[in-house]
Structures are given as structure tokens and as C-alpha cells.
């Protein structure tokens, strides 16, 4: 099992990248799990699929029902519900983590979740996680660790600053990753390319690709269409495919 975390400041295009990675990786290998770990969940839309329930819904349901479960085994109750929340599609499965914790004590339920998710995820070859810059599920260890972290940034000051913060956070959390990659997005001019290359070198990222600002990505979004519908011969799609190849190949 290889876990790839795709993260970055909101608005930099990480979900588009994550969705296309899911598409291309699942074309090459079976057993792919896509995980939307961003509380502002939109990976399903980007992939063009619909999800009825999230892990957060199940977790909240547990918090309110646990008293009336009597002597029913809580762990297998939870496991059964999570099984239902992992949605099966043609080429991949999708788990949407959903809302973050509410008030009250989550020690017990998170402890159960950790074990259950670990058990389920083990059986996938690739797990691609779309997560926000705070990396909540990694910090709580509901997802145990990432092998590869792909940080998406644009050329804005804020985007770069966040990229750096993520890098520091990943190290702090002791995620035991093998490599942190950087992907530059919406890179137009030569100047922009230079900025990102220098940033990558300075901060110790392995720079994977520089993705162009693609009007069609914006258009799809505007029309409410999934980004995976992007024509495969577009520069954006081709480059993400190259990233997918690197990730699949790197693991061997």
C-alpha cells in the first residue's frame, strides 16, 4: 500500500490535481482508494461521482447512538458503517472523511477509527488523499502516514508560504514520508517558473512539474463539470499524467 497525500493552500488547484491523479493511477493499477480528507469536500465533484454519506456522518452518528447500543459491539458496529461509507466506483473506491469533530470526547471513537481505517486501507495498492493544509487526519493519525506528500502551490506569496508551512508540519508530525514533492500550478510566465524553481531548491522540495494555467479547467469548474473530463491531450492533463507515472514508478 502506498499513500500519497496531495495538499496545498486552498485555491491552488490541489483537488484538480488529486482527481486527475486518481484517474491516471487507477488506469494503471487496480485497487485504488481516493480519500477526500478536506473538510470542504469537493473531490467527489472533481471525480464526477456522487457520495451519500461521509465518515464524519458515521462518527457523529456513533457519538449520539453509542449509549443505546447496549451490549452490541461498538467496534464492529462502526466497522459495518464505515464499510458502507467507502463508495465503490468502476475504477476506484472513494471515502469522504467529511466534517471535523464536534464537541465532546473523540478519544474513543478516533481510537476505533484508527484501527478500522488501517485495516481497510491496507488492501489497496494506492491511496490518494486530498487534504487541506492543516493535515488534520494525519495529525490525529486517523490516517497513519503518507509515503509521498505532493504539495501544490501557485506563484502567490501566500501559496508559497503555505507550502513551506506544510513541509514543516509534515516533519513535525513525524509522518515517516519518503519524499515531499512540489507541483507548481497556474504557472504562466518564465518569471513565474523561475520563482517556483528557486523556491523548490531553497526549501528542499523535489519539483515534479510546472502546470500551466489552463482555461479549460476553469471552464469545467464554471459549468459544474468534473475536472477529470479535461481532454487528455491538454498540457495540464499530460503533465499530471507524468506525475502519476513518477509516483507509480517511484514506489517500485
Amino acid at each position, binding site marked *: 500500500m502506498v499513500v500519497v497525500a496531495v495538499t496545498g493552500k486552498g485555491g491552488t488547484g490541489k483537488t484538480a490535481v488529486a482527481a486527475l491523479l486518481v484517474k491516471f493511477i487507477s488506469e494503471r493499477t487496480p485497487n485504488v482508494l481516493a480519500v477526500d480528507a478536506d473538510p470542504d469536500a469537493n473531490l467527489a465533484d472533481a471525480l464526477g461521482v456522487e457520495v451519500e454519506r461521509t465518515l464524519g456522518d458515521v462518527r457523529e452518528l456513533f457519538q449520539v447512538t453509542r449509549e443505546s447500543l*447496549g451490549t452490541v459491539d461498538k467496534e*464492529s458496529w462502526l466497522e459495518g458503517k464505515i464499510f458502507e461509507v467507502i463508495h465503490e466506483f468502476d475504477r476506484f473506491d472513494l471515502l469522504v472523511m467529511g466534517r471535523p469533530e464536534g464537541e*465532546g470526547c473523540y478519544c474513543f471513537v478516533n481510537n476505533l477509527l484508527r484501527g478500522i481505517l488501517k485495516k481497510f486501507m*491496507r*488492501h489497496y495498492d494506492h491511496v490518494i488523499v486530498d487534504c487541506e493544509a492543516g493535515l488534520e487526519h494525519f495529525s490525529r493519525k486517523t490516517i497513519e502516514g503518507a509515503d509521498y506528500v505532493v504539495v501544490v502551490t501557485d506563484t502567490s506569496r501566500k501559496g508559497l508560504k503555505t507550502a513551506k508551512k506544510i513541509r514543516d508540519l509534515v516533519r513535525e508530525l513525524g509522518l515517516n514520508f519518503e519524499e515531499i514533492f512540489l507541483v507548481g500550478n497556474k504557472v504562466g510566465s518564465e518569471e513565474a517558473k523561475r520563482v517556483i524553481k528557486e523556491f523548490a531548491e531553497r526549501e528542499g522540495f523535489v519539483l515534479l512539474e510546472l502546470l500551466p494555467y489552463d482555461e479549460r479547467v476553469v471552464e469545467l469548474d464554471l459549468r459544474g463539470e468534473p475536472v477529470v473530463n479535461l481532454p487528455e491531450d491538454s498540457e495540464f492533463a499530460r503533465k499530471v499524467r507524468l506525475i502519476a507515472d513518477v509516483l507509480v514508478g517511484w514506489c517500485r
Partner: protein
Amino acid sequence: MVERRKVEIPEGKKVKVSVGEEDFPFEISPMFEGERIRKGDMFVELAGPKTVGFELVISLPPDQVEDMKATLVGIDVDEMEEGGRYPFAMIYYIAGEKIDPDIESVVERRNHEFQNYIEGYMHINSRDTIWIRIGKNLMKKGLKSLLQIAKATMLLYKNEMPFIEKIEALYITDRELIEKLLNELARPIYEERDARVEKLHDEDVEEFYSCSLCQSFAPTHVCIISPDRPALCGAITWFDARAAAKIDPEGPNRPVPKGDCIDPIGGEYSGVNEFAKQESGGAVERVKIHSFFDAPHTSCGCFEAIGFYMPEVDGIGFVHRGYPNPAPNGLPFSTMAGQTGGGKQMVGFLGVGLAYFRSKKFLQADGGWYRVVWMPKELKEKFLKYIPEEMRDKIATEEDAKTIDELKEFLKRVDHPVVKGVVRPVDGKRITEGWVEEREEEEVEEEEEEKEERREEKVPSLPKVTPLAQPTAPTIKLVIKNAKIYIDKIIVRKVEEEKTKR
């Protein structure tokens, strides 16, 4: 209690039996846990949300159980169509010296785990919501009969749970029989087990269980979970902890032998004290699980409600997490929570789980509901039926009182037991003196010959008051008029000296 007996197989049903050894064309290993059989890879689905099924473990006397025998009633896999869905039930009979009906659910729980060890076989949920998928890969490997699954599972049981001396399996794919047994045997037993939760008490069991899940937040905190005292986070009952401890005795939930009962009313046990001392690194030496004032239970900070003592009325109030306003003592939940958490024993505050309000031993040592003077309306209504009838109108809510003065008025008006003195129901002992009539002046005198630690009976005492230092000079007179005092430090000086200074 629902009678435990072997199922009689009706005449005319298709029956297959296996008594000897079976060979397993499939692999069995924990690494297959969590293996997901997707719809496309599925040979058949058994039970599940779109049909019927259940799993059940029942204990029987040893002479009724034929060890390692497996029986199947109804069609087998070789007669099932690919992509089909069939009803399915599994019953296991177990026998052994240590086996009794109480242990059934602990054993039943593991069917899920063990069956998932089988390559190409997926088991989800429990009881009457089980959901099973047999993968095409398992059929390809050569699975011929469900009896092979039964045998493999029983072997795992005997291996992992040596107290099971004999085990026999009955698997059923016959819908009629499944539905009959579901209504006559399985569901009544599940209900009986759930009802038992309310009826089991501290004295009925040999051990309690600990939980150290939140020790990362409070290293000296350990919860002691007993049938009458569930975990303060609200998540774990004695049954949950027992099941978890059976599976992983070195995990966050471990058995705590009671030892000798030192105090049945306060709930103090020698074994529990030992355990507490060990686990808290010596920080906690004694615990009374049903006491507010004496060696109270510690908390990590995630309790669902907090009890607080109000000396002005000599009563205990409760406020739950999520209640937005300050309690009559002027403090909101968050501030009090800060006092109580972190694994310290803070006399005057106690974090509890909401389930504790349902306990028959609720704050037994201190008078239980007869000592409770205030709680938010939302909380009171939720647990109204557990409050003794005569106390229901005597416990104030925010609608009756928001401040101490209002509370005092209310309690006097309804003649709450704290006013005259509380008699605790469990043994009829009078445990508080009641309020003293207010006088204009209250004088407190300290004299040379007096003993150092003299508790003040005249003013309701605050917990952990530092004893006054002994004056070595002529008598000091302290005059206290109508005041609520919190003393951080008292400086005692000779009267003559006072004149020359300043």
C-alpha cells in the same frame, strides 16, 4: 432468562454434517482482515441489508456439545448462483468450565474477526445485521462447502480462546428456519443481554476495567469502569471495556481485580487502589468511585458533565458540557473543567459521564440525588426518571435560580434535604448538619491551648482550608460578618507590634 437449548432441526430439511477434519483450500491469516470483496469480485452475498441473517453464540452444558461438529441446513455454495444473494445464519454452541451466558457476547464478537482471516471471505457487522460476501477468488481456490468455513472458524476459536473446551456449529441457509430462530431465539437473547446492562452491579462482578485512552492528555489519569460507574467520557461501559480487554489485555482497557471491599458505600476496593497507585505513578493512592468528597475519581478533561460543590448551600450542582452560561457559583463549565481535568484529585469538583446519572449508586457516599441542588433544565429533563420522585421538584434549574442567593431562597422554599440535613438513603445515616441559622455576627476565636486543626462547624467549610498558624502571643480575635471567605494567606502579628508599624 431465555432458555439455552440446541436447535431442533425440523423434518424434511436438507442437512449436511461434517464431523471429521476438513482441509482448507484457502489461506487463513490476520492479514486478510479488512479485505474488501467488491461487487464485481463477488461470487455470492450472504445475509446483509437486503435479506435475513444472524449470528449467535450460546453456552450449553458440555454433554450437549459435540466438539468440532458442523451442520448445515439448507443449500450449500455448490448450489448457489453467481451474483446471488442468500439468507444465512450461524449458531455456535460452546461449553467449558469457565463458560456461562455472560461470556456469550464476548465470544460472539470474535466471529467477525476470525471469519475475516479467511482469504476471499468478508464478514461485516454483528448480530442480526451481519453481511457476508464470498469472493470469486475463494471459489476458484476450491471452496466446496460452507462447512469448511465453519470448521476453520471453530479452529480459530479454540486456538485463540482456550477457555472454550467444546464448540459446535450450526449454519443455516434455509430462510424459513432462519426467520423462526431469529424471532424465537436470537432476538430475545440479544434483548436479554442489553437489558442485563441495567441490572448488573458492582458487587456482581469480580473485576472492573481500566481505560487509559486519554492518558496522552493526562498522564496520571486512569478511569476505573465498573457496572455502576461507566467511563466519564461517555463512550465505554463495563461491557465494552471487558470485551476490549479480552481481545487485547495489554491495550488501553485492562482488567482491574477488585480485591477486598474497603468501603461498599463510597466504592473503595484494595485491588483498585493498588492499580491506581501503579498506573498513576503514585500520584493517586486511593479512589472511591462513588464519592464526591473523599478520594474522588480523577479525570482527563473530557467528562460530559461536572459536579461542583457550593458550600453556601452545602449542596452539589451539575453542569454539562455545552451549557453556555455560568452556574450559580458564577463559573462556567470551561473554567470548572480547567480545575478538574489533568488527572488531579480535586475535592469540590468531579467530572462524570452522563450515564452515571442513571447509576443506582450515583454519588452514593454523599447522598446521591438528595445532595444535588442544581442542574440545567436540559440535563434534568433527560434524567428525570432516574431522580427519586420526591426530589424532582426540589432540584433547581436555571429557571428557578441563577445565583447563589436565588438558589438559597429556592431550596428553603422547597425544603430541600440540604437545608435541614441530608440523610443518605443507602444506609439511613445522616451525613450533613443542615444550614445554620444566620446570625448577625459570627465570631471565630483561636486560643493558644486549642488544637491546630479545628474544623469550623459554624460556617460551612470550604474544602482544603489551610489550618491557621498558631499565634505565640496574646489571643487574636477574628470577627467575620456575613461574608463568603476565600483565604489565600493569613498573616498573624502581635497586637503591640502592629501599633509601631505604619
